[in-house]
């Protein structure tokens, strides 16, 4: 199934490279909602998330030749989207030394909390904390991957996540 999907991806990408507008729209439709949702979670504004989605897919189609197939096309698009979302957000990531804290513990949400409530709390995090939290705890990226995408160190990624969880606990206490 995975191999079949990958072959469909390759054929679609080839058509997009030939500037086939229908193929480009198909590629866009396949990923637009997931990308839009991710952009919104990082940025916190629907208008800015739409702009980011638009910029991302224009970048994708103009730079598709540089896609080497080392990842899936979806993962490649996601990386571009995340970088555009951070630019839109003016997110900054600062390293703080927290070496003596356990960074690997999972964040546990109260099961009684609704999705909207959790999302509101996440959207109230500082930009840098929120980005790392979303990428790590929601999207499942490892710190090394986050560091590559955001052009920060692994240590910074870990410290941002620690502070994100700390802030989130406070926010949810009042939820």
């Amino acid at each position, binding site marked *: 199934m995975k191999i079949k999907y990958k072959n469909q991806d390759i054929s679609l990408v080839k058509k997009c490279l030939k500037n086939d507008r229908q193929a480009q729209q198909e590629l*866009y439709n396949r990923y637009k*909602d*997931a990308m*839009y949702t991710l952009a919104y979670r990082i940025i916190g504004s629907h208008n800015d998330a*739409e702009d980011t989605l638009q910029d991302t897919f*224009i970048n994708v189609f103009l730079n598709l030749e540089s896609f080497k197939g080392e990842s899936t096309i979806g993962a490649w698009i996601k990386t571009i989207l995340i970088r555009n979302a951070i630019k839109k957000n003016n997110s900054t990531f600062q390293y703080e030394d927290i070496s003596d804290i356990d960074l690997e513990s*999972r964040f546990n*949400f109260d099961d009684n909390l609704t999705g909207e409530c959790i999302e509101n709390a996440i959207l109230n995090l500082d930009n840098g904390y929120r980005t790392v939290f979303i990428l790590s705890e*929601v999207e*499942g990226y490892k710190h090394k991957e986050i560091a590559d995408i955001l052009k920060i160190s692994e240590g910074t990624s870990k410290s941002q996540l620690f502070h994100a969880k700390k802030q989130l606990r406070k926010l949810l206490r009042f939820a």
Partner: protein
Amino acid sequence: MTTTNIKDKLPTYKASDCVWDKISGHLDYLDKESGSNQLIEKLPGYTAPNLFDSIITRKKKKTNYLSLVKIAASIIIMIGTTLTYSYFQTQPKSTITYSYEQQIPTNGDQLFNIEIQSTEFTTLLAIKCKTSPNICGNKEYEDLYSRLKEIEREEKILKSALEEYNDPNIENHLIRITNDKLKIEKYLLNLFS
């Protein structure tokens, strides 16, 4: 709740339909841009003929080329004709004078009278050559005339490209070569004075 459940619990959203329209519009614009750039590259380039020195020397005047461009804002030509015929008498020699008015185009709207002006000018030259055939027979006139025709052909190509693409680069190019054409027309007229 574990991390893997967070994603399932968070709300998801749908992108609005207008986003694709904007993306597609942008890609269409970029396609058009690259098309008109390719067209401009295919158009023949030219260098102005080196006739100015001989014309200036003939007139024994030093003319600043840049001043000509600046000064030539408009050429006013007065057309008047008197024809008298007499079957049985010798008529006094009449002189037919023609004048030709041209306005230097400065924007795209003024470029669309080019063809009418070109036809009128060609007619004027034909009339002048009937009265002064020796001038039309010389090399200088022939060189200027063939250059004029070349520019008129290029004008037509650019005009049609401008109608299709409405590109400011094409418009500027067209204005430049039209200005050069007007200079050559002026030199041609001066040969008869």
